């Protein structure tokens, strides 16, 4: 029962936040609603007994990504834009207003319809198991084992990815204007610092 | 003697290497090197001719070359010569030799020019010798490259357009042909998969193939694939429009090669590949081939008549003459086929003469207008002012017009004799082509040569020794083979006869 309540409340949070994320004009609010979505999803994970995943979701997403987003929003001003071009074909994707939402909604509905229609057939294949709602075992141990056995390569190589992403983000985010050489030097140092993190 | 084909094929390549080693400032050395190369090659072709066994119907066993090339695909470097390719070989050897002579005055990037010409020569020989589909196709395509540059760099005003058009047109045809070749490859297992000869003999009757979801007769669909590739090269009527551009824009020597040798590759392809491999389809569609041939004859002639550019006129006349070849092949009789092959040779010599002569006058006048766009005469009075030129021009012109005693007539007569029995109506229409053919040539001749020479014409000098020297062999060929064609007919007789016998089985 608790699971059901948790599910419904979490999914209500997810759906409501999604809707608000779509509708809001303010990007900052949007980020906050994203937070809602992510927490909701974490709740859904919990209903599925994925405790570790839920925790990671909260930590990485809520703690990292959303904050990153908020920084980005603040750095870039954070207002939504109106379409600039108003003619003919360019009208089509010039969203952020009713036209854009019409398009977005239309495409979304079509895609959703398509996927729903086709994935109905999914249940010809899937055999849904009986779930014992009351017995949740912790997954962390098993996950840990899997990570160093079956998914060792993925685990190791994701580190390469993260390293690359880190270096890459640093490379990209360097200021653009021509500056004296010493500032470049300082930057270099700075970005090496980042690497060591 | 067995390596003679290799010698012929690779001597030009050696020549290219030699030329590349000569510093480009030393233009005359380059020219002489090219001349020597082609001369040697020509001598080799003559040696081949001397050692040719006329009684052998298939490939000459003495000259076969077969070396494995790509083992996994059963591709061989396999060369051979028979009665159908032999005349073309001599023609190629001769024309390239003469073309080098005629290109003496080329002054723009001499080194590249002669190197490309020699490369062209090698590839053309390759096409005529190749007995392996892959090798054939490679030579067939590689030939486009030197042509592209020769037209595009040394050509006339609109050369780039012409070069690109030529290239694309031919490439289109040959890539379709490639599919046919590959389809054939999969039809035969083992070492003979790419062997042109192994496919011959109508093996693919009754086989079907699925394209666009429909079942087609293998025989027919790939006959048309081959047909497209070769017909564009010939060129047959609806595919001819690259030819006037290419000819008009190309430099003289290249026009000569184009008209003299390259067009023959198309008809050669029919005789070597399309007809023997798909005899049933060839026989079934011979009416269409003949009709296309006759349309080419008339259409080319009519279009030639309307031209004010003399080179374009001759270019269209090539369309017309190659139409005769197509008709002769469609006849599938001894006379017709032999006539077609002979016409290939004869058209090579006569049209080469025409283009060379136009080149000679172009070097003096730097234009080719019979009648300029503003309505004034481009030339006029050449006959009075340049007698030697006139005489040689007359020989060339009347040879291409089909005057008996000169080479064009015999082949046309044989073609007509061959085709009359099968396609009477078409013959009746086609002989009108002779009429129109005479009309446009004579009209052109009158407008260029008759009348009083203008000031401009008076400033031209008559042909010099070099020019006469390269015209004389062609004149001799045109006259000698006009009176006594047997030297050529004898070598082709057995091979063509074999082909005719094959075709006869399917009629």
């Amino acid at each position, binding site marked *: 029962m608790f699971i059901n309540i948790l599910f419904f409340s979490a999914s209500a949070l997810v759906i409501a936040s999604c809707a608000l994320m779509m509708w809001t004009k303010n990007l900052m609010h949007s980020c906050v609603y994203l937070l809602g979505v992510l927490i909701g999803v974490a709740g859904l994970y919990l209903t599925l007994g994925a405790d570790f995943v839920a925790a990671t979701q909260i930590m990485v997403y809520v703690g990292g990504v959303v904050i990153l987003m908020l920084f980005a929003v603040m750095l870039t001003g954070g207002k939504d834009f109106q379409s600039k071009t108003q003619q003919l074909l360019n009208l089509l994707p010039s969203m952020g207003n009713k036209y854009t939402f019409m398009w977005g909604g239309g495409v979304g509905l079509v895609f959703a319809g398509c996927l729903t229609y086709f994935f109905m057939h*999914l249940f010809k294949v899937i055999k849904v198991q009986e779930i014992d709602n009351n017995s949740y075992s912790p997954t962390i141990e098993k996950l840990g084992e899997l990570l160093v056995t079956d998914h060792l390569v993925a685990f190791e190589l994701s580190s390469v990815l993260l390293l*690359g992403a880190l270096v890459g983000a640093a490379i990209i985010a360097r200021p653009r204007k021509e500056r004296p050489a010493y500032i470049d030097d300082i930057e270099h140092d700075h970005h090496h610092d980042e690497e060591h993190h | 003697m067995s390596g003679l084909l290799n010698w012929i094929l690779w001597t030009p390549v050696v020549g290219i290497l030699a030329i590349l080693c000569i510093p480009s400032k030393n233009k005359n050395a380059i020219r002489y090197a090219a001349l020597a190369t082609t001369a040697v090659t020509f001598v080799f072709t003559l040696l081949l001719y001397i050692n040719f066994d006329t009684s052998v119907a298939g490939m000459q066993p003495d000259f076969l070359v077969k070396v494995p090339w790509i083992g996994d695909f059963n591709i061989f470097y396999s060369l051979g010569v028979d009665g159908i390719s032999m005349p073309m070989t001599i023609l190629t050897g001769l024309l390239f030799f003469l073309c080098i002579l005629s290109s003496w005055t080329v002054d723009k990037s001499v080194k590249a020019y002669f190197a490309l010409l020699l490369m062209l020569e090698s590839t053309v020989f390759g096409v005529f010798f190749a007995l392996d589909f892959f090798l054939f196709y490679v030579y067939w395509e590689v030939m486009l490259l030197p042509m592209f540059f020769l037209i595009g760099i040394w050509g006339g005003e609109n050369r780039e357009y012409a070069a690109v058009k030529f290239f*694309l047109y031919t490439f289109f045809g040959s890539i379709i042909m490639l599919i046919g070749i590959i389809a054939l490859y999969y039809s035969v297992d083992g070492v003979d998969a790419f062997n042109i000869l192994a496919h011959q003999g109508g093996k693919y009757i009754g086989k079907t193939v699925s394209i666009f979801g429909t079942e087609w007769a293998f025989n027919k669909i790939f006959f048309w694939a081959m047909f497209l590739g070769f017909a564009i090269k010939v060129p047959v009527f609806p595919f001819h429009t690259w030819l006037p551009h290419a000819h008009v824009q190309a430099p003289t020597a290249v026009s000569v090669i184009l008209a003299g040798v390259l067009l023959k590759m198309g008809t050669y392809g029919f005789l070597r590949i399309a007809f023997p491999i798909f005899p049933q389809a060839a026989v079934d569609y011979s009416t269409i081939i003949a009709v296309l041939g006759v349309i080419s004859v008339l259409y080319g002639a009519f279009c030639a008549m309307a031209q004010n550019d003399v080179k374009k006129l001759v270019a269209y006349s090539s369309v017309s003459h190659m139409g005769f070849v197509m008709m002769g092949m469609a006849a599938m009789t001894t006379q017709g086929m032999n006539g077609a092959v002979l016409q290939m040779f004869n058209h090579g010599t006569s049209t080469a003469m025409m283009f060379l002569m136009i080149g000679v006058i172009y070097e003096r006048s730097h234009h080719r207008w019979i009648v300029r766009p503003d309505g004034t005469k481009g030339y006029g009075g050449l006959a009075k002012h340049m007698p030697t030129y006139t005489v040689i021009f007359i020989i060339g012109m009347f040879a291409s017009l089909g005057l008996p005693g000169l080479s064009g007539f015999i082949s046309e007569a044989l073609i007509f004799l061959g085709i009359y029995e099968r396609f009477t109506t078409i013959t009746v229409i086609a002989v009108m082509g002779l009429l129109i053919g005479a009309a446009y040539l004579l009209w052109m001749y009158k407008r260029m040569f008759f009348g009083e020479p203008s000031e401009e014409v008076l400033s031209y000098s008559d042909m010099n020794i070099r020019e006469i020297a390269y015209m004389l062999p062609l004149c001799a060929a045109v006259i000698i083979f006009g009176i006594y064609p047997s030297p050529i007919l004898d070598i082709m007789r057995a091979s063509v006869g074999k082909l005719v016998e094959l075709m006869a089985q399917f009629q």
Partner: protein
Amino acid sequence: MTTNLLANLSFYIPEMIVIVTMMSLLFMETAYANNERRRTFVYVTGVIGMLLCLFSLFKNLGVEAQGIFANAVVVDSFSTMMKITMVIGTLGTFYISHKSIDIYDELKSEYLIMAVGVLIGGMLLASSNNMLTLYLGVETLSILSYVMTSLKRRDNLSSEAAIKYALYGGVTAGIMLFGMSHLYGMFGSIQFGPIIEGIKGLESFNVAAVISLLLFFVGIGYKIACFPFHMWSPDVYQGSPVPVTAFFSIVPKIAGIAVVARVTYSFFGTETVNTHIWNSLIALIAALTMTVGNLSALNQKSVKRMLAFSSIGHVGLILMGVLTFGNNGMSAILFYTLIYTFMTLVAFFVTTMVVNRTGSDDAVYFRGLMKTHPILGMSFLIALFSLAGLPPFGGFVAKFNIISSAVGNGLYTLSIVAAINSVISLVYYLKLARSMVFDTADSEETIESYSLASRVYVIGMVIPIIFLGLFWNNIYHLYSSAKLYLN
């Protein structure tokens, strides 16, 4: 278990070498990036790493096909050969990046790092045997590629390209994951093996499975830029620095092709109820990709953009080979990718040289290249003709092999489409060739950075194109002996 995993490490030496190379490059960069002269060390490190990797890959060629690391990745000669090609491509772009002024000097070592990182992703992708490693590979490729795209500093186009790449990559990755998740749900595993079993076990045609695979394919299709997932690629290619463009048209594509081939062949290699529908999907995509790529390339001014579209066209052709994978298709693909790598390297090297002179890759700046720089012009010509598929160059043999395998499998329609496409492609290649050879140059000045080494490099890249066009027996033989690991 653990020892087993450790034992598997011996087959993973090439990847490890690359990872080590990446690390050492990072350190070298830290140490020497500011010093003009010593930056050479960075390059040397990269080259040595790549050569070592090549060496170990060659050693790996003889290894029997097997899954390693609990079947997460496989080592088989097919993937090893693809990796060899990728490494050669990477190595080739090193020199281009060295010569290019599109990437500022101080960023060149970053280029190396990123390229090697992408290479790791590509290698992982090429040998991935479950959806997770596949996803990781794709993401490694993508995320590092975004960075590479924006390496061209002080140029808004570069950032714009990066944004497009990132957004497009993000959405396709999401869609791919969505598809993967359903596959996982349906077949109960993220390993390919059970999925294949599951697909084979389907008694009737199941739309959901196929649609999931389609969604799954979106992610890979976006990497190889096949129609209709290609739209990012011209923009990104145009916006990126030239060496990066060169790199993009080699490594990610080859990796993607490897995956598509693996998925298609191992999932649908044997006749099942869903085989036909998947093959017709690939066939349709191949035909459309060729056509769209080549037609779009016709009217391009920017050479990079033109080459981007042309590479889309080539991908279409390679997809044809994928269709016939079991029957000559594999060797055809391998051969094609190898030749394609060389051709692309030459083309982009020449483009780099032109961009170095004029700062733009507009086709007009190629005018008269043949006269001002004969070797460069000649090489470019050969590359172009080879790309168009003209004998005696390798491009022809590659195309021949592909069409031949297609015809051998009765794919006549597709072959005809391919044939017509190569005519179309010739149109734009010739356009460039023509302006290069026939037109007169705007300026006679020579390219500063065009040194003796450049000549050696470009000739060195051209030689395989010609050589493989004439004597391709051995290499073809080698390629046709390649094995694909089947679960």
